[in-house]
């Protein structure tokens, strides 16, 4: 890597320029030179240096393309084959034999005769959107509140009590009450998952802020009269970037898992999300020949969560400046 950089450096100059005599200059010798450092470029350089990341990113790109583009371009009617008993619970081979080869049928059909392949991508669009929106809201609120929480000792006392209390209210209870109050729609679920979900993130950030807040360099900064907002944005935020990215890597898949869990215990969305698909196909798991309609959403949910998690973790590692050497 460094060798190549050196070569690039030299190729910009001609032979004469490289070997011509240079006079000593007092002014020039006072200059401190270092290779130009751009944080984000280094992050991506470290990230793409690992070939595994490229593979996983490709998988993730394909999954996202299927999740968001495939439902736009294909027609999917869940109840199109409802009256056709011969079209229900077909294995891939039987479905292809019956309907002719097309991408819709490569995973067989489900309980209503719907193509499992289409159902999975429509479901993953709902699940993934839910996860992304919830993670965005919770991370934004959590990081902002957590930063303030970590900085102010007075707020810390109050918020710790709030955290101890709210943390003990069963999450399932809160969600089910909200679902009963409103309808089990997409936005109700977003509200239910975010209304207290930010608290745990804020608590995590608070702990991180407290760890860095009293480090010597921040103490020095404060002694020199740096305003607190500048300390927060210039001293602490860069340190927190890798923590935040790692956190996002855990958070996004966790909402997908949580949605699956809620659907399984019967408190999930009314839309056919991945969780709802798994819940409704549970009986198909034990029936020989029906396995595809159960395992397809399970496998897709697992691949999406693993890909998101690994990407996030490695991006988190790469965004730690200590790995940029």
């Amino acid at each position, binding site marked *: 890597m460094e060798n190549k950089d050196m070569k690039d450096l030299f190729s910009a100059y001609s032979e004469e320029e490289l070997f011509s005599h240079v006079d000593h200059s007092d002014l020039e010798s006072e200059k401190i030179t270092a290779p130009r450092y751009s944080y984000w470029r280094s992050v991506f350089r470290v990230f793409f240096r690992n070939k595994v990341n490229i593979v996983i990113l490709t998988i993730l790109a394909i999954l996202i393309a299927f999740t968001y583009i495939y439902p736009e371009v294909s027609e999917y009617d869940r109840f199109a084959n409802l009256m056709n008993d011969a079209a229900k619970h077909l294995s891939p081979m039987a479905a292809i034999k019956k309907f002719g080869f097309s991408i819709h049928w490569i995973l067989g059909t489900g309980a209503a005769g719907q193509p499992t392949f289409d159902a999975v991508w429509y479901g993953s669009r709902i699940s993934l959107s839910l996860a992304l929106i919830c993670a965005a809201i919770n991370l934004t609120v959590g990081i902002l509140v957590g930063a303030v929480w970590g900085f102010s000792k007075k707020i810390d006392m109050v918020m710790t*009590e709030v955290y*101890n*209390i*709210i*943390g*003990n*209210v*069963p999450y*399932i*209870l*809160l969600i*089910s*009450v909200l679902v*009963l*109050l409103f309808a089990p729609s997409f936005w109700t679920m977003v509200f239910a998952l975010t209304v207290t979900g930010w608290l745990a993130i804020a608590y995590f950030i608070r702990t991180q802020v407290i760890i860095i807040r009293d480090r010597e360099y921040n103490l020095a900064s404060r002694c020199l009269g740096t305003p607190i907002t500048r300390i927060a944005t210039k001293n602490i935020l860069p340190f927190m970037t890798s923590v935040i990215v790692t956190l996002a890597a*855990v958070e996004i*898949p966790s909402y*997908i*898992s949580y949605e*699956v*869990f809620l659907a*399984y*215990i*019967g*408190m999930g969305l009314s839309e056919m999300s991945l969780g709802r698909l*798994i819940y409704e196909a549970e009986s198909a*798991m*034990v029936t020989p020949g029906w396995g595809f309609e*159960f395992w397809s959403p*399970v*496998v897709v*949910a*697992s691949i999406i*969560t*693993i890909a*998101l*998690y*690994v990407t996030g*973790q490695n991006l988190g590692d790469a965004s730690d400046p200590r790995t940029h050497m």
Partner: protein
Amino acid sequence: MAKYILRRFLHGLISVFIVVGIVMILIYSMLNRDLIFAGDSTYTNLGNNQKTVYKYRKWQEYGYIDFKSYAEYLQMLVNEEELSDEERDAVVNIGKKPESDSEEVAAYIAQFTEYFEKQGFKVERLNAVMATPRKYASGGQQQLFAYKDRPLWKRLTSYITGIITIDNIHAVQEDIGERKLTFTLHDPVYGGKKFSPAIIGNGTVHKYLLYFNSTFPFLHQNLISINLGKSYSVNAGIDVFTTMTTPQGSYVPREITYPTGLKEVSADDLHTAVYVLDSREANLVNEDRFVDDYTSVQTVKGGFSKMGYSFVIGIIAVLLSYGIGIPLGIAMARHKDKIIDKIGTIYIVFIIAVPSLAYIFLFKAIGGRLGLPTTFDMESTSKLMYVLPIISLALPSIGDLMKWLRRYMIDQMNSDYVKFARSGGLSEREIFTGHILKNAAIPLIHGIPASVLGALVGAIITERVYVIPGAGNLLTIAINRYDNGVIVGVTMFYAMLSVVSIILGDVLMAFVDPRISFSSKSR
């Protein structure tokens, strides 16, 4: 230290009560209160005014409102001797409509209305619903009653003060003879000859307040009972704590001798006898068996309680996960970036990222292929049915332990004391197990009480997937059936356990790490 723990505990207790208050607001004030009747067949079968009154009575029973009917008000007057029985009988029947009241009745109704409206009650009169001019429609009798919403603080205080009841010799209202506690060295249940100390009460709710028997923990008591809230639909009329702790399964009949000397093969557990007024007069069977009115007994059952099943499975899983997770975590840290570390990392990623539902189903499918039982059967004596649930619970916590132990150990590896130990010539094994592990395990030790107590709570998905009759599902079932009593009770129980386990974790941590101290000086 003791003072500090006590203060922490009281502090925790207050937050538990606030949690219960929040939950009460959520379910009593925010939810539609008609929902609790969703699964009540009595309610569905009643008609017209009777249905309305039933509704109000149930609301009163489950703590929503205070309710008094006109007849109850008149009875109250009789008890206060302001009214004689004959006078009451003359005015207790109100007219079908306000216009058809006799003058006397109207006067009492006015008095009733004034009395309750002064206290902020709302008085409601339902006119008769007639099928024909002479015949009432089903449940159509006229009704008069007063009701008032019970405020949150009142509900909360009556709940909190009712959690612990201590049995005493004045608990039975009726005349019962000499009220006393007797201490005996020879428990009459065992024929009065075998040595077995017991305390027997007369005038108490339970007959046996303290006794020994052959089941764990051998010494049992009925003196203090815990009431977390009465169930409406999950286990009608029974307290949540009792629901969680009562044994399940089939009866275990054996020959027992009743107090009258009658020998019979029965599953009755005489130690659980509870006072029921005039039960011997009402039932000849009781007359044959018992010498006093302590006749209501529970039965001996073969299985564990809900909490018992959850705890057995949970605690084995916890032991297993610490037993496997810690050595693997050490191995991963010792061979960092080697093959074992990489395999371990893949496993950790799999466990964290994949939805828990997915891998539990995966284990179930694999276990089923291998011929292990995939559903739980209380009647079966096979221990194999415990295998899959335990594995399903242990594997994720093994992953979690590996992840954190590896992290903490690697963080410690560059410390000065490790370099010093290495330069002193200690072997890598000695450094890792003797020095690094001791320091790295401290944060993990904090979590031990939580995982042990957490085993009591049970696991929702695992218990559902393997059909285990455990406690984990109680909250979700209660929510699905709108059983407010159970919801509040279970929440209270969870919150209490979590407070206690955090305190225990801190204590344990201070115990193993002398640097951590809770005395006021260092804080």
